[in-house]
Structures are given as structure tokens and as C-alpha cells.
């Protein structure tokens, strides 16, 4: 009896040690390869880390599904947003001629682009679905400048790991990792269904991230910040979403 117990004790002890050191090595590797989301420390961060790590390994370069023109929703749905600020109303009265997108942070040539300049950049048009975390969805044709083009223009530093983007509605800001920031379908969007991007859908400028849920596609963007760490932004959880109780990564 005592012999069996001792053997059991030794094997269990060895297995536990191997397990713990295995986990520690896995955590270190995951950190190095960018598989730990900034909200990993919240209450359900363990599940979130598994989701983000698994989907990053699976989807680094995959393309969001694109649809045929016949599949574009006849009734797109614009979710409610907070009432526009006086600043927004002033710009809207001027047909957004004075709207600017500032790009700062770890860039060789920080810049501020006017709406007209952005519309002059090379565009990409794609028919993708936008899915709200609530459960509803629609398909639209989006037209915009790939975010990667803007990152090239400002000379993003090689150590940049995240792009933080802010709405003119100051309580709405988000960030994405470089897998999504450099992704060809991630667009600084200014057109929808063959027209200007309507205000209820985020006009004049919306960042479309089609591999994530709708709340990552922030409306009315005015500023991009390139950074290697999200610690200094808000509560350090990555974006306004986890501060409001929602996951930072929304690939689901």
C-alpha cells in the first residue's frame, strides 16, 4: 500500500511540475507571439485568451467572406449612436470639408489628412457582412482606403503592435493588432453601396474591420495612434469595450 502511494506521489508530483512549467513556457511563448489579448486580466480573461490565441493561429491571413452584389442587403440597419456632439454638427454643416484624420504615435512621418486627401488615396471596394454582437446583421458594399496604405504613408515603426483608433464621440475608442491593421480588408471607409458613407452608418469615416463584430468598426474616426503597448490607453485593457464589460477581441 505504502509503496503504491509513494510511486503515485512521485508520478503525480512529476506530472504536476511538468504541467505547471509547460503552462509557464506556453504563456511566455504566447506573449512573444502576440497571443495574449490586453484584457486577459479581466474576470473571464482566461477564456478570452484561449479564443484570441486560437483564432490568431487560425486566421492571421484569412479573408472575411465576400458576397455577390445581389446579396447586398436592401435594408441595412444603422444601430443607435449617442447624439452627435456640437463639434460633429459643426463639421456636418460644412459637408465634412474640415474633417481630418490625424495619425500619430510610433510613425516616422506623423500626419493629418483631410477627407479629400483620403478620398484621393487608392481605394478598395468589398462586399462584406457586418454583424452586431446583439445578433443581427447586414451585407453592404464598402469603399475605402486600406489601413495598411495609411500606415505605409506615415512610416509605421517596425515595433508597432497595435493601432488605436478614436471616434469624434470621445467615449468610443478601439484598437486592433497588426494582423487586423495590416489586413487587406481593413478599410478606412468613406463609401457605402455606391455612395458616400451615410452618417447613421458612420460617415464621413468609419474603420471597417470585417473579421470582427460591428462594435470594432468604430464610426466617425478622427485619430489613429500607432503603439507597441496598450498600457497607457484608458485603463490599459485595450479599448473602451472591455471598460464597458465587452471583450477587446471580437472575432467572437
Amino acid at each position: 500500500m505504502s509503496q503504491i502511494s509513494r510511486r503515485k506521489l512521485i508520478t503525480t508530483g512529476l506530472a504536476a511540475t511538468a504541467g505547471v512549467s509547460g503552462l509557464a513556457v506556453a504563456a511566455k511563448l504566447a506573449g512573444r507571439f502576440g497571443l495574449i489579448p490586453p484584457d486577459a486580466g479581466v474576470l473571464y480573461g482566461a477564456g478570452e485568451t484561449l479564443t484570441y490565441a486560437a483564432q490568431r493561429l487560425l486566421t492571421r491571413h484569412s479573408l472575411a467572406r465576400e458576397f455577390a452584389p445581389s446579396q447586398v442587403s436592401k435594408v441595412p440597419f444603422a444601430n443607435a449612436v449617442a447624439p452627435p456632439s456640437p463639434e460633429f454638427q459643426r463639421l456636418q454643416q460644412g459637408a465634412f470639408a474640415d474633417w481630418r484624420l490625424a495619425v500619430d504615435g510610433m510613425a516616422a512621418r506623423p500626419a493629418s489628412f483631410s477627407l479629400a486627401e483620403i478620398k484621393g488615396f487608392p481605394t478598395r471596394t468589398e462586399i462584406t457582412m457586418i454583424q452586431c454582437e446583439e445578433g443581427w446583421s447586414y451585407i453592404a458594399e464598402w469603399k475605402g482606403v486600406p489601413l495598411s496604405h495609411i500606415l505605409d504613408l506615415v512610416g509605421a515603426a517596425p515595433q508597432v503592435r497595435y493601432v488605436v483608433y478614436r471616434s469624434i464621440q470621445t467615449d468610443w475608442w478601439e484598437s486592433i493588432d497588426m494582423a487586423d491593421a495590416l489586413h487587406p480588408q481593413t478599410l478606412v471607409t468613406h463609401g457605402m453601396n455606391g455612395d458616400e458613407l451615410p452618417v447613421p452608418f458612420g460617415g464621413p469615416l468609419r474603420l471597417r474591420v470585417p473579421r470582427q463584430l460591428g462594435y470594432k468598426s468604430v464610426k466617425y474616426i478622427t485619430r489613429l495612434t500607432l503603439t507597441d503597448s496598450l498600457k497607457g490607453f484608458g485603463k490599459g485593457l485595450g479599448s473602451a469595450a472591455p471598460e464597458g464589460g465587452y471583450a477587446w477581441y471580437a472575432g467572437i
Partner: protein
Amino acid sequence: MRILRRRRPRIQCPTGTPWYILQMADSLVGQTFVATAADTTLPPRHSAVVRVTHWLITLSFLALLLTGVEILISHPRFYWGETGNAGTRPLFTVPIPASRGTVPTGYGYVLPDQNGWSRYLHFQSAWLAVFTGLLYLSYGFFKGHFRRNLVPARSDLSARGLLSVIAGHLRFKPPSEQEAWSYNVLQRLTYLLVVFVLFPFVIWTGLAMSPAVVSAIPALVNVLGGQQSARTLHLFASGFLVLFLLVHVLMVWFAGFRNRVRAMITGRPATPMERA
């Protein structure tokens, strides 16, 4: 364990030990082995892996159910095809108020929004369910649990055999003591359906709603007819799992709730002597 058992002196059987305990001990140990009903060296009714995974799945399923309902409440309308929203015609509507004011429900009020933590916990519980399921499946395949305990005997699958079990259930015939040590053919078929059809399908339809996952594997959603179809099918699959849960608990109740739950915790049902 086997060594221990051989060294153990034979215990004389107290008078009145039921025949099936003796027979069970015989068949399990593979030799004439006399034991008391309370002998703890008998292999348990449910193995440790089955018991642990059973309660882990219970925990994750209840969390998934609660959070799933909370997520549903934010948009209790269901659609077929790729897209659907408050401006399109639903396939059907769950007649409950919503937690978002933008959804037309016919109710004059909006429920509190619980989506944030519900989504976090839903996916964390899904991971727990997946890891537990993988442990259970590998145990079930490699240790013969499925072959031995869940795949029904060919003779039990005859129409006559099935009908007699169904008739017994309809007459609320209580299970005999012997039946506490094995599953009948209806139980076996139901468990196989839950393990190999419903759980995989609910995970599949869940993944088919993820824009990132389907960017890598578009077939996951395309064969279901679209993202909203996947959402609707996810609801149906969850509904069947809830139905299973209700019938399962009801059956455990009829068969003797305390004793069956005890067997799933300690591995052993109480013997008639212990209960006396």
C-alpha cells in the same frame, strides 16, 4: 489496484446479500469472488473520468444556457439565410421583451443589458465544455466506455425490444435494482445522440457565427445556408439539449434521485442494506 484486490482476504458473504451483487462481483472481477455489498474494491458504477467530466459539463452547460439566454434577449428575432435585422422580416420571434431599445418586440419596456459579461462567460464556458468533451471522448474511445456502456446490443435494437422498453417507461415502471448498473437501450441511444450529434452540432453552429473562424473555414457557415441560419440552428440545437436535460433530470428523479446522484458523485449507488 489489481494487486491490492488479490491480497485481500475473502470476505464471507452476510446472509441476505442480494444475488445480483454477487453475480456482479463475479462478472467484474472475473473469478469467483465473494464480497459484501459495501465492498469498495468493486469497480464503480461510473468511472472517475465519467464522473468528473459529467459535472464539468453540467457546470459549463448551465453557464452556457444562462448566458445564451441573456445574449438571445438582446435580439429575440430569428432569421434564415445570411442576414437579418430589425428592418427585415424574421422567420420567427421569441415572444419576450428585448434588452435593446432598437428591437421591435411589442413590449413597452427594455430589459437590462447583460451582454458584456454574458458573452465573456459564454465563450469561456464553451472552452471548458470543449476541453471536457475532448477528455471524455478520448477516454470513451480508448478505454472502451462507448463500446461497453453506450453502444446498444444488436438484440436490443429489435422493434420488440425497443417497444418493451418504451412501454415500460410509459407505464412509469420503476427500474429494477439490476438496471442501476447498466443503461437500457433508450438511454444508450439518447446518450449517443447527445454526445455525437447534439453537442458537436451546437459547437459547429456556434463557430459558424464567428466572422473570424468562418474567414478561415467558410464552409462551416456556407453549408448551413448562412450566418443567420447558423444562429437559428444554434438556438434549435440548444433547445434539444435543454429538452434532454429536463428529461434526464426527470428520469433520475423517477429512478431515485439521491441514489443516482450519489452514484455519479462517489461512483457507487447505495446498496439496499445501506439504505435500510
